[in-house]
């Protein structure tokens, strides 16, 4: 039922302009509806690729792209903008282990890049002041035939 709802939601996604939307890593795409109050964002474009769909959401600070598998699960998110989005929200279930790993990962000096690996997810931040970039993904949820570098 959830899956069906989700497909329906994605199908009509483009029509639902100016909504506050948000989905969570590792959860089904209908976390868009349950969490939409969490961040001030509006729905952007939805694009269909081989093996996944990308749903864009746009806030004043940052554009977030959510990578959704054919079964309706968010397997990756990527962003770019003036600041990093609140990962507590976007990482959902994984935010606890992310924070723990963040605390334990040494700072790389001279780099505008950080990589945090937990048991289940990878979070990378790069870019520079005025145009920060980042991505987070669940390696075990990436659909077959899709490469990590498509999440960008």
């Amino acid at each position, binding site marked *: 039922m959830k899956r069906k709802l989700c497909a329906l939601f994605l199908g009509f996604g483009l029509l639902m302009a100016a909504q506050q939307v948000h989905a969570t890593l590792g959860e089904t795409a209908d976390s868009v509806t349950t969490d939409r109050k969490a961040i001030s964002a509006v729905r952007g474009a939805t694009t269909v690729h081989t093996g996944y769909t990308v749903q864009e959401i746009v806030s004043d600070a940052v554009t977030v792209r959510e990578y959704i598998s054919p079964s309706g699960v968010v397997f990756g998110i990527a962003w770019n903008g003036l600041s990093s989005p609140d990962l507590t929200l976007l990482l959902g279930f994984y935010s606890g282990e992310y924070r723990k790993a*963040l605390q334990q990962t040494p700072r790389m000096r001279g780099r505008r*890049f950080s990589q945090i690996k937990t048991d289940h997810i990878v979070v990378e931040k790069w870019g*520079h002041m005025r145009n920060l970039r980042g991505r987070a993904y669940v390696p075990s949820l990436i659909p077959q035939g899709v490469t990590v570098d498509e999440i960008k």
Partner: protein
Amino acid sequence: MKSSKRALLFLILVLAAGCGSGGSSTPSVTGGNEAPASNVLPITVNGSLCSPSTSAFYLNKPCVSITICNPGTSTCQTINDILLDTGSFGLRIFKSVLSSDISLTQVASGSGSLAECAQFGGFSEWGPVQLAGVALAGEPTVTVPIQVIDPTFANISTSSTSTICPGADQGPVSAGFSGILGVGVLSQDCGSDCVTNSNIGIYYSCNGSTCSGTKVGLSSQVQNPVAFLPSDNNGVIVELPSVPSNGSPSVNGILVLGIGTKTNNVPSGVTTYNTDIFGEIITILTGTTYSSIIDSGSNGLFFTPPSTGLLPNCASNPTWFCPSSATTLSAENEGASGSPSGEVFFQIGNFDILTSSSNMVFSNIGGSSPPGLFDWGLPFYFGRNIFVGIQNTSSSLGTGPYFAY
């Protein structure tokens, strides 16, 4: 010995010009033991201006010295170990390195104090925005909003569990610098989006220990101090010498303030690459197109290799490249609009082999980065004079924002 004498002379000049009442001397820069010209800051890459306590294992670290003063007074402090960063905008100094004489003026935000989470890609800095007198080389002291980096400000936790600025740098030793001098192509660290929106996640108004997002006018944002100078304010030139292919323990260079404003900063024979609104140009490497930055604050050449196997990661240092032999590549840099374009030859050596010596400065080290961005870090600067033109200013090279070399 020579360089410490020069540094001492420089310090005296800065103190005299920045904190005294006179300070209009303009000696020429002809090397030797003479003091640098009023618009010249010495740069040491892993040299005497870098603090040993923050620099261990930190390759390609360009350091300058700046002087900050209590606004409108001659109470000043000269601070070394400031990272020269053409990839950001504005001056930031750790509170922990300020002497007890320094008392800057807090910038207000409504009924609260303005604070900032400045973000740099892989790291971030938290702390209040304060007005400081800033003296660069022998230039007149200018009053500019700077960030005082203080992870405890407003008692917010910047630990990894915080929702504001999680993971912000905790001090100079872990960050690798005492401060950052952002002299890139833009004037402010946020710009117009922070003027109209309170929810950008950069600026906060703090009352006691409660901080909430706030709008900030351009003039209160932390900004590139070069743009504030009475003259020499249209950009900078970073001049660093070539480095031998097996590296060097340290190198010295200069940061020249202004472009075409004095006899020592007249451009000739360089190509201007205008950037977009983010400070990015375009780089094409073997058919792959990247957005790119020319960033003195990055200590290597960082990009996604255009084909797998070309530049393997090191086994023990997987964020660096370890090709079995030095690999020469040719890329094309383009202005953000697609022109002009110019070829760049560069070399990537084996990081593990190169760094097995005690050398700290290398023109040929690089590492992999996620897709999309080509980061021409400090190695690109060696053996080149790089002109950094500030937005909405002009020179014979054109109107900023641009890089030229």
